[in-house]
Every structure is written in C-alpha cells, then in structure tokens.
C-alpha cells in the first residue's frame, strides 16, 4: 500500500498520545476529581496500557523492530486476558452492578479489556502498512508530535507514580483488592499487603469435583447424627430389563403405577408396575444444544417426564405415539419412536450455585420441582432448591436446620456431610436419601428443618429414591431396589 512511512509514524504517534492522555492520564484526573482509586488488578491493566504506549514510543523513536512489535503483541494479548479475568468478577452481576463507577456506561475494567483488544487490532493495521525494507525508510528523527508524545508520557507516568505512592505505598506494599477513596491527605492513605493472603488455586471457587457417590462412607455410625434409629430393608426388587448404563435415578407415578428410570449414560426408561417391561425408552443426545452431564434424577410431572443432570440441566420428555421420529432424531441417539422432547433447560440457583445435584423430586401440592445440592470441599452446604413448575425458575431455597429432637455428634459435624442421591416429596415432607452414611433424612418443607433421620444399613451405592404407597424404594446403581417401610404413620391422604 502506497502510504509513506512518515505518515505511518505520525499516525502511530497520535495513537500513543491518545492512549497516554485518555486511559492512562485520564485515570489520574478521575482520582483527583472523583477520588477514584484502582484496585490491584486495575493497576496492572493501567500499567499495561502505559507500557503499550511506551513501546509505541520505542517504535516512533527507533523504528518498527521485530522485538518492539512482538512486545506490543504480547502486552495486548496479556491485557485481553487481564480484561477477561478482571471483568469476569462482575460481568454476570445484575443490571448496572459492578465495581467502582462506570465511565460512559462501562466500568473501567471493561474499558481496559476493550482497549487491549483495539491495540491488537491496531498492530495488525500497522503491520499491514509497514514496508518490507527492515525499517530503512522509517524517519530517523522524531517530529514535533513525537517529541510532544514523549514529554507527555513522562509527565503522565510521573503523575501515575505519585498516585501509586499515595494509594498503594512504596515497595513492598502493593495495590489492594478493595481500595479506599483517593485523597491528597497522607493521613487517609492506606498501605498493605493483604493480596498476598489466600492459597494458590487455578479456578478458585469453581474447583468443584464432579460428585461420585461410589466413593462415600456408607456406615451410618460414622455420620454427623449419632446413632439414628434404624430403618430396616424389608425386601428387595430388581429392574428386570437391561439398561444402557448404570441406574442413576428412579421415580414412581402412583396414578399409573409406572416407573421412570434414568442411567448415567443418558438412558431414559418408562417401565410398567412390575419393573420387568419397558413401555418406552430413549437415549438422549447429551451434546445437542444444552450440555447435559450424566443423569442423576427423575420425576413424574403428570404425564411429563423430568430428568435431571448432575449439572442441574434438565430435559422434559413425554411418551407420545404420534411423535415424529424424523424430528426427534436430533434429540435422541436411540428411541423406540414414541417419545418426544418437550424442552431442555438449566436450573439456576443462588445458594446452590457452583454445586452439583444427584436428586430430583416433584412436590405436587406446591407444584414445584426440588433438588438437593451435593456439598463439596469448596461449598460445604446442604441446600434444598425449589423450582416453580410453571416457568422452571427458582422459587425458594434454604439450608435445612436441625430439628428439635436431633443433635450433631460434635461441633465439627454438619448436615453438609450428607450426600443426597434421591428424594421424594409428599405431604409437606421431603424424604432425602444420603449415600454418605446410608441415612434417610426427613425434611419438613414448611418449617425447613430436618425432622428425623434414619439409618438404612445394607445399602450399596444408592442412586435414587421413589415412593410407592407406604413404601420407599431405594434404588441402587446395580439395578436392585431396597424396599423400606415409610417411617411414621403414613396414609394416602393425611400428613404424617
């Protein structure tokens, strides 16, 4: 392209002036006028923009040497990462929320990410316009604008050094995560090194292992509730049809005496009351549209079948002999031709955020679906989440308290040690079966308390819970089903 190298240099000079004056110099003005103080991450982003402008001065002064161009690309790439990392703290917040004040409708950390991206773009344009003469045609002497840019930069860098001294202190002090308002009064200056605290981690609170119910202590005597009364297994049944994958959830529909079984390989089976005949089955395609992790829970919503993944994504299905097999091909890897996918979605939670689930229940009296979160080393909570069936949005959420008749085995014990793998809601109660310590928790949904707990010795890797009249059915991964008599006086119409 026939553009003189002097013009390219002049354009670059004005870019350097703009970068120096607006984000790097303007930030000092914001401090003086509005008391705006950057956090440690803002400081790094501002420093990076200053360094990019400085490399621009190197190019203006010495020519477009490869090491200068490489340095700018490295700085801009790092700056885009910094912008993403920093903005990720706030991007998912609600409308208008953020850190510190917005600037022309965007918060400063977002601007910094955008500016670094524009720098990358500018470097591409600069490379496009450079002549392939190893800089021989580059002007040897800086022009008036170039000298102005250098002088301006020194002044702006010195102003930033002063602000940094006031707000972050001399070495070894450094920037803070939550700094105080800028002041010229030294009595208001706060210096510290609290950013050095905390353990190293790649993903922080997102470091959550996928739940593995096979790796839990099944002994009820080791649980947080000492010596709960025993609920004996009164019989065994078995799913009599071959399943694709291991059983991972079970539900029973009292209206039609049908069972809904799901597997960890996305199999969904509608079984008759004998558990020995498959009425319908599909294998859901987990990679199409919404990402479905292995299925972990099942529930009947009338004639709608709800299946839940460990990552709280769900699929709603319905048996339908008129289903269009060609249309459903995109949803199912395998189908008997009589099942429809109604909807895929994701449950959004608040207290149970960043936690997996292994259970799903449906409370017909409240018309709500219920999940119980699986505690992890990062998030030690037992959270019951309820979702309105109408819009499948969160309607309430709570951490159950301990009932008046229960006590923990020590100050260091917690209900969050239970790992609920199956749940049933009936008559205002949530029966939640924990694979850890083989314990059945009875949670009062109205009072939000654990009313009772029962040890169920003899279970081997339970994965689900269903209700059948006065009985509870604890499903195991191997397809066997332990029959339990429901604790307390149960009747089909009255609450316990």
């Amino acid at each position, binding site marked *: 392209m026939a553009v003189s190298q002097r013009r390219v240099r002049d354009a670059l000079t004005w870019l350097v002036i703009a970068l120096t004056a607006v984000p790097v110099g303007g930030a000092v003005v914001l401090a003086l006028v509005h008391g705006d103080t950057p956090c*440690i991450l803002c400081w*790094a982003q501002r420093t990076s923009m200053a360094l990019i402008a400085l490399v621009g001065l190197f190019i203006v002064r010495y020519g477009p040497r490869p090491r200068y161009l490489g340095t700018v690309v490295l700085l801009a790439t790092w700056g885009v990462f910094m912008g993403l*990392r920093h903005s990720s703290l706030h991007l998912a917040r609600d409308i208008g929320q953020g850190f510190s004040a917005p600037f022309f409708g965007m918060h400063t950390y977002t601007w910094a990410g955008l500016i670094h991206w524009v720098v990358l773009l500018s470097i591409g344009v600069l490379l496009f316009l450079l002549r392939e003469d190893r800089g021989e045609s580059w002007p040897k002497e800086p022009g008036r604008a170039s000298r102005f840019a*250098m002088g301006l930069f*020194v002044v702006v860098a010195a102003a930033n050094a002063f602000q940094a001294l006031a707000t972050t202190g001399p070495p*070894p002090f450094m920037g803070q995560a939550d700094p105080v308002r800028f002041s010229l009064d030294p009595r208001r200056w706060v210096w510290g090194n609290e950013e050095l605290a905390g353990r*190293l981690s790649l993903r922080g609170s997102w470091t959550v292992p996928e739940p593995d119910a096979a790796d839990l202590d099944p002994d009820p005597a080791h649980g947080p509730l000492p010596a709960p009364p025993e609920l004996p297994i009164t019989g065994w049944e078995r799913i009599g049809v071959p399943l694709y994958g291991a059983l991972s959830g079970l539900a029973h529909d009292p209206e039609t005496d049908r069972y809904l079984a799901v597997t960890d390989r996305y199999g969904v089976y509608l079984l008759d009351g004998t558990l020995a005949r498959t009425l319908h089955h599909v294998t859901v395609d987990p990679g199409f549209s919404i990402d479905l992790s292995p299925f972990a829970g099942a529930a009947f919503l009338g004639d709608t079948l709800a299946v839940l993944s460990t990552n709280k994504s769900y699929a709603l299905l319905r048996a339908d002999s008129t289903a269009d097999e060609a249309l459903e091909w995109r949803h199912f890897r395998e189908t008997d031709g009589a099942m429809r996918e109604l909807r895929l979605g994701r449950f959004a939670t608040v207290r149970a955020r960043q936690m997996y689930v292994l259970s799903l229940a449906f409370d017909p009296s409240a018309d709500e679906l219920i999940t119980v979160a699986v505690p992890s080393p990062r998030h030690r909570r037992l959270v019951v989440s309820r979702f309105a069936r109408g819009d499948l949005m969160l309607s309430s959420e709570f951490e159950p308290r301990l009932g008046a008749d229960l006590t923990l085995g020590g100050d260091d014990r917690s209900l969050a040690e239970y790992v609920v793998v199956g749940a049933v809601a009936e008559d205002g109660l949530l029966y939640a079966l924990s694979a850890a310590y083989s314990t059945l928790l009875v949670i009062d949904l109205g009072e939000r308390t654990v009313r009772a707990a029962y040890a169920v010795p003899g279970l081997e890797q339970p994965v689900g819970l269903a209700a059948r009249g006065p009985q509870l059915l604890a499903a195991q991964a191997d397809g066997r089903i332990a029959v339990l008599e429901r604790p307390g006086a149960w009747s089909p119409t009255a609450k316990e």
Partner: protein
Amino acid sequence: MEFLNFVLIAWTAWLVWRRPDREGRAFGLLIVSCLLMALLFLVGTHTSFVPGINL
C-alpha cells in the same frame, strides 16, 4: 510496587526521549516493567488464576 513500576516506566520514557543512544538499557527496563506488571496481576489473582466463569 505499582509506584516502583511507574518510576521505572517514567525513567524508561525519559531515556527514550532524552538519551536515545541508551536504547538497550531502556528496552531492558521496559521488559522488567512488563514482568513486574504481570507478576502483580498474578499476585492479585493467585486464588483463582483463570476467570471465575464456566469454562
């Protein structure tokens, strides 16, 4: 530490502006500033190096 870094940056710019013959020293200071900037960002994010979002 941010104060130190901006002092280094101002010094580097001054060399480029007023002592252009000391290009090597200026570039060395620039690299030191870049590394210090990256280090300070990593200190500020050491409890979660990657963005706190679904990956």
